């Protein structure tokens, strides 16, 4: 290992001098290897069994007919993939997701940013406002859906929203059914998620705001930048770049995995069914079709990876300045 260091010593002395450290070194390396596996081994075994094995198994199943059984039945090649990619219900679930992302990502970001800036500027009761906006982030999507479906946007007359519009003389709106002609379920779904997640992203942006060095603001002020909009665009927004990228990427990945509120608010309806809800009913519903379910899950995994990488590139994640 360190032969060059001993090259000036006489040959006999050298070999003697080398053996002892090498042996000690070997023992040390063995000790380290043992320690490494002592620390990492239990975790890695679990990861292998519960993450890697299922994924490989699922990859195998996706090339087989596997209905009502989790054992590969008949090899069908890429038929499951072709079926899924030509299945109009699966494709429309991707459309549902895209529409959802278009609604939820910008609204979440703008609302979280606005609230973060307001709270950052607040001179008193700042902790109070931060807490109130943040509390729903600890609430489950099931509870959020429950309040939205059964109280605020209940389609009957005593729902809060319908009570409110009744005071203006309007008829009750059937918020969660598609019968109204207008897709009223979108505002319900989007506002539910906004309530549940804005606080989380607000905290991230607030942390970002507080990391902007105050001397940047002083310099901008000295340079004649007008306080307010000009300072916001030239100092605050660039300073928030890292936090912004994190918020947008996390938000999109989470939107891709939307399940809880769609399942609880709408159930298995054909008009607004994101990919996970569709996969849930394909693989675990009455059909128990693990072959198609696995193929769909893998297609989704690849899509998420591609979109995430693309988004990270566009937003310049991992640039030298980060």
């Amino acid at each position, binding site marked *: 290992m360190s032969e060059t260091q001993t090259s000036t010593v006489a040959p006999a002395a050298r070999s003697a001098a080398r053996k002892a450290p090498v042996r000690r070194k070997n023992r040390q390396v063995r000790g*380290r*290897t043992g*320690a490494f596996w*002592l620390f*990492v081994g*239990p*975790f*890695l075994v679990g*990861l292998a*069994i519960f*993450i890697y*094995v*299922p*994924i490989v*198994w*699922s990859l195998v199943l996706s090339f087989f007919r596997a209905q009502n059984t*989790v*054992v590969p039945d008949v090899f069908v090649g890429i038929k499951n993939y072709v079926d899924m990619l030509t299945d109009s219900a699966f494709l429309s679930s991707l459309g549902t997701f895209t529409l959802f992302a278009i609604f939820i990502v910008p609204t979440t970001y703008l609302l979280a940013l606005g*609230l973060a800036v*307001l*709270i950052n*500027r*607040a001179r008193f009761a700042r902790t109070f*406002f931060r807490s*109130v*906006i*943040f509390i*729903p982030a*600890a*609430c*489950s999507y*099931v*509870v959020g859906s*429950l*309040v939205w*479906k059964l*109280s*605020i946007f209940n389609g009957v007359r*005593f729902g809060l929203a319908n*009570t409110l519009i009744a005071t203006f003389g309007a008829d009750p709106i059937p918020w969660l059914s598609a019968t109204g002609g207008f897709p009223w379920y979108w505002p319900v779904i989007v506002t539910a998620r906004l309530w549940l997640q804005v606080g989380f*992203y607000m*905290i*991230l942006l607030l*942390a*970002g705001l507080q990391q902007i060095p105050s*001397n940047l603001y*002083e310099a901008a002020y000295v340079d004649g930048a007008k*306080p307010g909009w000009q300072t916001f665009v030239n100092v605050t927004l660039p300073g928030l770049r890292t936090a912004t990228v*994190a*918020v947008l990427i996390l938000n999109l*990945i989470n939107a891709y*995995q939307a*399940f809880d509120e769609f399942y*609880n608010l709408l159930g298995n309806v054909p008009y607004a069914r994101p990919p996970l809800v569709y996969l*849930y009913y394909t693989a*675990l519903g009455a059909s128990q079709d*693990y072959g198609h379910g*696995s193929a769909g*899950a893998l297609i989704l*995994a690849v899509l998420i990876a591609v979109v995430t990488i693309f988004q990270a590139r566009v937003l310049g994640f991992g640039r030298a300045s980060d």
Partner: protein
Amino acid sequence: MAFSLLAPKPVGAVGGQSGSVRGVLGTVLRYTVLVIAAVLFLLPYYLILRNGLSSEHDITSPNWTFFPSSLHWENLGELFSDPSVPMGHALLNSGLIAVVQTAGQLLLGSMAGYGLARIPYKHANKVFYSVLVTLMIPSAVTFVPSFVLVSSLGWVSDLRGLIIPGLFSGFVAFLFRQFFLNFPVELEDAARVDGLSYWGTFWRIVFPNSLQFYAAIAVITFIAAWNSFLWPLVIGQDPSSWTVQVALSSFITAQTINLHEVFLGAAVSILPLVLVFLFLQRYLVEGVAQTGIKG
């Protein structure tokens, strides 16, 4: 800081123009928006309590009342004695799952994180990449394959199926690795010179000095485990293995529902989180900043 002498106003007030009419107006406007936002964000909690403690008649009344005519605390007894939705049992399941998963993820993840950060081993990088790859795979997408595995183990409707697959979080291991990389190495070196092994160093020096970070990750993990829905829904097919979220969901989708029972159930389900929130908010905020920015 010569600039701060030049700047006529404290930095926090840039744009605030305190004192001028415009500044006062701005402050009033900002607080108006904040107060409206606060009311809107608190509204759902108020609705949960209002409906949970109302009589069914008050909830479905066409005349909206902000405060029910009388509070029905007996709804609570009704909730826990309803045979169709085993709420008490579901709370126990959720508590057990959340506690065991939090402890397990922290123990296994922090040990793995320490090994990856501190113990020189020639294949450590390969091991680290194999952990990183699992971060790229969204957990929700793996529910079909994981179900395939768990059902062939016979763990459906079983606490083992609900708990064990969730003990291994690549994300937690990753966060701990990043944290331990920044741990003052001098402390560990001193311990090693004193003859402590890696194991001893970890438990007697590193762990006791990292409790704040553990607390931050624990709070986040606990909330996520308590609130998780898709996996418990997939695995908890028998009512005896329902978590509180699955029980609430079965309330929502039931044919006939007692609204006050549903809302009271929701109130009970968020109580542990409100307690966590009130007493551990500092750690929660730190945990969010850690997991969000670094994730």
